[in-house]
């Protein structure tokens, strides 16, 4: 079984286990619920299987950045769909896991999830994955200055919501 592009199943499982958490976080940041996040994650790795023949990665970091950007794009497409928009009206926004709620850091998570979509990927890749602005710009296909402005506006929104100032690297 497997694999549309990669040589064997073991390699795919290795890639999956290595990057599944990061992809899931990106997907959850966009979809804001477990079910849609899981669907987006599966679609992301299916896309990886289909494109692995044509896509050659320089290293794991490049491969991880490709998966994150692909997951964000898939989530954006899913959010644009008409069915998703209709369902969103009927759902409650309060789907944060109980663990996060009880953790005390739910305010920060809620503020991050409440960010506009165009800031989420850059914020996640910069603050959690610790990619540089140039890498983020290369992954998103945008200028580095654009990435910097996205990061600056995103931080400003979080500071406005959470108070205080975020550290700038």
């Amino acid at each position, binding site marked *: *079984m*497997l*694999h*549309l592009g990669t040589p064997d*199943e073991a390699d795919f*499982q290795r890639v*999956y*286990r290595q990057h*599944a*958490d990061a992809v*899931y*976080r990106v997907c*959850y*940041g966009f979809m804001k619920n*477990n079910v849609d996040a*899981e669907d987006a*994650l*599966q679609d992301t*790795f*299916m896309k990886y*299987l289909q494109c692995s023949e044509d896509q050659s990665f320089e290293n794991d970091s490049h491969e991880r950045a490709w998966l994150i950007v692909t997951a964000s794009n898939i989530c954006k497409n899913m959010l644009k769909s008409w069915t998703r928009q209709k369902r969103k009206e009927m759902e409650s926004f309060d789907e944060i*896991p109980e*663990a*996060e709620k009880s*953790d005390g*850091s*739910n305010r*920060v*998570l809620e503020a*991050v999830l409440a960010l506009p979509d165009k800031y989420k990927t850059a*914020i*996640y890749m910069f*603050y*959690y994955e610790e990619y540089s602005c140039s890498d983020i710009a290369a992954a998103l296909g945008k200028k580095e200055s654009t990435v910097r402005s996205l990061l600056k506006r995103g931080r400003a929104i*979080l*500071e406005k919501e*959470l*108070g*205080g*100032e*975020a*550290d700038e*690297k």
Partner: protein
Amino acid sequence: MKNDDIKKAYDHLTPDDETKERMLRNIMMMSSEIEQNASAKPVIVPWYVRLRMPMGISAAAMACAMVFTLALNNPALVQDSSSHQNMLGTKPAASVSAVTVTTTDCTTSKTTETTAVETKISKTPAVQTASITSTAAQTPTITAPVNNFLNTSSSSEIYTAAPKPVTSNVVTPPPTTSTEALITTVSVETVTTPAETAVTTEHSAVTTEISESSVTTTTTKKPILYGNIHDYNHVELAGAEYITYYECIPYEELDDTLGSGVAVGELIGGSYTILMYSINDTPVEEAIAVQYAGQQTYYLFYNID
């Protein structure tokens, strides 16, 4: 807000191992399904190939239904076809059967062929065969030409040839035989016709003679033409008196006068030119002959004094 707060917040979004394994199985299942669908992808057959059999079957069914409907609506069509088959074989059979009846003198091999033909064409209407047979029997002269026709064209030729030529060959003989019979009859009539003509001619000649004799008879038996020969001015013909304006000729001058003279019939309003002749062995004083101009007959004038 610090950077660690954002990182800690994302750490809480990590799925558990069970969820990750479940998602991995789903991915594996989806990829395997995609591969199976790709391998088991049916070969796309063009529509004209896919619809070839149904179209052929439907076309054949429609053709059968059409023929059946035509046969139901036009029962004469089936009869016509059978009669057409009979026509193709009947006419040869008719002529051949007729020939067979009449030509008992045929050789054995020829008779065999014609018999085979007869068996094949047993569908021949009895009336037609009978009529042709009777015709052939009534005219013995038919035998020869029809035999020739049969000898020249075998039965195989009759059935292997095209319908029209066969029909023409077959139809032709009866008229041909009848024509010959008529020719024979005409020849007989031609022989008798001169006799009738001769008779007629004789009769006409007799009639002519009779008419002439009657004229002559009337002329001779009724000697109306008499009168005073010396006067020459009075002539009666057929009960009619004729008076001339010429003066009387004396006897002595009669000879000088003979040979010419003019008489004008006053009663009839006409004039006559006559020639007067003397009669041999008869004195002019007793009788003279008068010939009217343009006529071959002579009228005798007797002196009744």
